[in-house]
């Protein structure tokens, strides 16, 4: 394991400390709990998200005006606990309620649910939106359902925009539920991710091997294959992602690096995605390329397609925000 860190168990606390030291102009922490929150709060619904650490810049990099009010950091790749989330909820409420944006993982769902129950006992209005964009997993009663991955960041952005516009908690929840149905993601990995305390990659791929459909904690994908060229990967991901979008005319794209992928590869891949999409009758009206929802030091990327036939989503995606990593 080659990492620039100190004691492996201290990484989460130290990266949090680094963040707060660097960005104290607009971000602050909540004492004794790993929460990053805006200093200035508008009198609007507060959006709270979070999950295990290791997905940086998610989620703390999206805290700020126009996106999240607070982010809750769990242990590495481990959902945060209900009391942490509860602290974030309390601190985020300005009397307009709090919307939780939760990635669909058993742990996240349950911990956020418990936090919601705690908050309700203190009469704070809380709703939640579940993001399950990873189409690598079949959504059936035989699985925990589709996972929440990079598309979550688009949910932060769009709902963050609406929250700033003054939408109510109920409106935001409804909007969110409709929105998540329009977002699909697929990832590929060239290497596994190494959790510092574990010290070795969660899985290993041979020098000439890649895996399609891997989750952001290294959950198994749907196929291993020899390493393909960018255009072949673009073909496979686009084909799968566009399968359900037969009536869609306008889309947005998010090409997301998983932590150790150079930006140059993301741009080569983006190019191939655009070429691939020429086979479809769609217009690309929004795109974002970079690291948004990583998997520690995994090499690989994910492609997210969002259906943008609704003009309002597009406007919500492009409005200015004041966060670190959008």
């Amino acid at each position, binding site marked *: 394991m080659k990492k620039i860190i100190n004691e492996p168990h201290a990484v989460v606390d130290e990266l949090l400390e680094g963040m707060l030291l660097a960005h104290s102009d607009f971000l602050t922490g909540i004492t004794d709990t790993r929460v990053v929150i805006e200093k200035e709060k508008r009198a609007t619904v507060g959006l709270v998200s979070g999950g*295990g650490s290791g997905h940086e810049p998610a989620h703390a990099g999206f805290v700020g005006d126009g996106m999240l009010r607070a982010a809750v950091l*769990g*242990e590495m*790749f*481990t*959902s*945060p*606990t*209900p*009391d*942490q989330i509860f602290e974030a909820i309390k601190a985020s409420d300005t009397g307009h309620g709090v919307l939780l944006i939760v990635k669909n*993982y*058993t*742990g996240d769902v*349950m*911990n956020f*649910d*418990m936090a919601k129950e705690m908050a309700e006992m203190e009469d704070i209005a809380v709703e939640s939106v579940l993001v399950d964009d990873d189409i690598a*997993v079949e959504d059936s*009663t*035989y*699985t*925990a359902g589709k*996972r929440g991955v990079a598309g979550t960041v688009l949910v932060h952005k769009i709902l963050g925009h609406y929250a700033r516009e003054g939408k109510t908690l109920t409106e935001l929840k409804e909007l969110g539920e409709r929105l998540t149905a329009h977002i699909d993601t697929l990832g590929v990995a060239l290497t596994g991710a190494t*959790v510092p*305390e*574990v010290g070795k990659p*969660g899985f290993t791929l041979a020098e000439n091997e890649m895996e399609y459909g891997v*989750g952001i*904690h*290294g*959950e*198994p994908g749907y196929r291993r294959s020899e390493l393909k060229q960018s255009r072949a990967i673009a073909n496979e991901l686009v084909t799968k992602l566009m399968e359900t979008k037969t009536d869609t005319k306008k889309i947005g794209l998010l090409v997301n690096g998983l932590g150790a992928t150079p930006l140059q590869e993301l741009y080569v891949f983006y190019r191939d995605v655009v070429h691939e999409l020429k086979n479809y009758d769609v217009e690309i009206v929004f795109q974002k390329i970079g690291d948004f929802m990583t998997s520690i030091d995994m090499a690989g990327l994910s492609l997210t397609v969002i259906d943008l036939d609704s003009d309002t989503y597009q406007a919500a995606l492009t409005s200015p925000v004041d966060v670190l990593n959008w």
Partner: protein
Amino acid sequence: MELTHEQAKRWLLNFHQKVTDNKAYLSELDQAIGDGDHGSNMARGTEAVKDKLGSVTEDSLEAVLKQAAMALISKVGGASGPLYGSAFMAMAKTAKETSELSTLIEAGLDGIKHRGKADVGDKTMIDMWQPVTSALHEDDLTEVTIDQALEDVKPLKAKKGRASYVGERSMGALDPGAVSSGYLFTALIEEVLA
């Protein structure tokens, strides 16, 4: 049979010891079909339980179970945190009414089912809690019950939690949550039933 608050404390301390001793093994089991953190998660959690128990001054079963629940909820995270936490919280609530052991454990089982929306056969800790609850109702909980439950959980295909992502590959493997729950009930046998 009734559970006293002293017994409950000894039970939880024994559980902590077993989890600590088997931390690496639990993570290894989780590595095979999950994400390899069940040992760390449970060690962190039971350590917190141990710490909290020291500060329980009330001589009440409810207080002991509630502190355990709080410690697990606030320190574990992941899937097992809210599940164990909900189990102990449900037991604590039930302890207001009764201290009958099988009723308490059944309440814990219900807490897990309610929180995780899983059921028997999904290859989760429920596949340990359910047979143990039945055995307690018949006053017949022994190591055999636990060993049998572990045998029975192996061939199952995971349908809930992280292990469900590996699908077929989960068949033949032990479920880490069922194993850690097995430690919980072995500790119960040793401290309460023996």
